[in-house]
């Protein structure tokens, strides 16, 4: 199961990288979102998938599953949610003032 998850992470990373390398701003932002999903799955996988019981004392004698990766992922999801929302708003404002969503046109000239 872990191997399958790692393959899935690999696929997501390649999709995300492909999107991030494109020129359209919205595609880049979606790419960062896909990348963050990939790393969340990675954290879940390296922590070990379900190997024991629910980690509640008293409900069973153990061994228990490590619950920490899920706490980490929850935090990371909240952060990536906030950043993605901010990025989308920023991209929209940038599109309205600069009149383009093509990053190769955002290079800027040295004499500004």
């Amino acid at each position, binding site marked *: 199961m872990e191997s399958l998850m790692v393959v899935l992470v690999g696929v997501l990373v390649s999709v995300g990288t492909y999107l991030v390398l494109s020129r359209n*701003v919205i595609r880049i932002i979606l790419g*960062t979102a896909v990348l963050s999903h990939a790393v969340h799955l990675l954290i879940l996988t*390296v922590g070990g998938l379900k190997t024991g019981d629910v980690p509640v004392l008293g409900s069973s004698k153990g061994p228990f599953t490590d619950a920490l990766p899920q706490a980490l992922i929850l935090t990371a999801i909240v*952060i990536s949610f906030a950043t993605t929302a901010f990025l989308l708003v920023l991209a929209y404002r940038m599109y309205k*003032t*600069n009149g383009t969503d093509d990053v190769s046109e955002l290079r*800027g000239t040295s004499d500004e």
Partner: protein
Amino acid sequence: MNNLIVLPLIIPIMTAVILVFLRRNIILQRIISILTMIFITGISIMILSAVQTEGIIKLDFGGWLPPFGILFVADSFSMLLVVVANIVTIICLIYAFSTIGARHEQMFFYPFVLLLIAGVNGSFLTGDIFNLFVCFEVMLLASYVLIALGGERVQLRESLKYVLINVVTSWIFLVALAYLYGTLKTLNMAHIAERVAEVGQDPLITTVAILFLIVFSIKAGLLLFFWLPGSYIVPPTAVQALFAALLTKVGVYALIRTFTLMFPLNQDVTHTLIGIMAGLTIVLGCMGALAGKDVYTIATYNVIIGVGFILIGLASGTEAALSGAIYYLIHDMLAKGLLFLLVGTMVYLTGETIVKRMSGLIQNYPLFGWIFFVVLLTLTGIPPFSGFVGKILIGQGAIEAGSYVLLAIGFASSIVVLYSLLRIFLASFFGETTVSEEDKKPIPKGVMVSFILFTISIIYLGVGAESLSVYVQDAAHTLINPSIYIDAILGEGV
């Protein structure tokens, strides 16, 4: 006592929330934000002196003992940086009062500065590497807003790139954290250090260490500084100074902490790599500073040279080199903050950014000109100003470690720094003045106050280096002997 060490994080956040509701009342916002900063500076100084008597102080949140819970750790190194970061913020706030403009102030400028400093303080204080990631994000989100606030064409363009680069960097940080958790099954920095020492630093752990090196290098502007010159010049002057003084330095702090505490064993690979990167950073930074035609470019490349120079100290890795790195880090926070404020004021006064088009500023504003001269001297490392002690100690460390190439590059960079700033000084401050006595814009009082405060701290850091040396030596001693830190967190017997 140890509950105090969470205050530098929690008070700015709470005040920021309160300030959001006082949006229209600018005067009240100013008073509350400056009082908050003075209050936490006082508390940080208290904690710093307590660390000297009681040793390293830690706070386990929710009573979860390490290595299971998240914790805050106050040792001399982190507390010194917290104190300096807060002082820099106070001075930048004073500068902002008279320059930033009502438009920024009504759009939550002060709350975001407070959130930024909360993230910075949190990054310095945390003892848990995942919590370091969270504090980084708090700081970065505030910086995203501050860099885009104002909504100019250039600002939005550059901030989009800045945000995207940082989002991808944070992603690499998470990947590194995932591998670290996969190999060592712990996130507590002291516990990581202990486990690495137990199992030895095998190639897998070294790879993880190099991933962290890449992440923190992008944040610190060590070699991977391609994003820095573009994005640091677009926000208003007070924000530029805050960024130049704080953001890259948090990355430098993280690098020093990571490679002295957690991954100190395989120095052949990691420290050599840091040394090469530091050398290249200085060379490229010098090229940029020499080629720059406008004051902003010269100032940003000076930030990059500074980062490279501090990391020579880490690459050498001896106790003298590390105390030099700490001195220089403190000096660089103050001097770069002042440099950006001065440069921003020059642009404000003349309406020009190109060095050659400004002239004779010193005739109209003598004090302003001489303060620029002080910054020039301190960045070059001339005694009695603050850059001198750090440069001497880093040089001494580099000789002890036998890294003569780095030593040569580091000290040659001083000359380039001198040349690049002297060029501004000669061209823009001397010569015929272009503005007549009637047309000259006055420098606001608050601006002069902030310059003078910065200058006093720089002179104090140079002349009073002796009074700080207790703290710096303790900090360097803890860095060079990570077992002190580990024992303080995990207890002797674990």
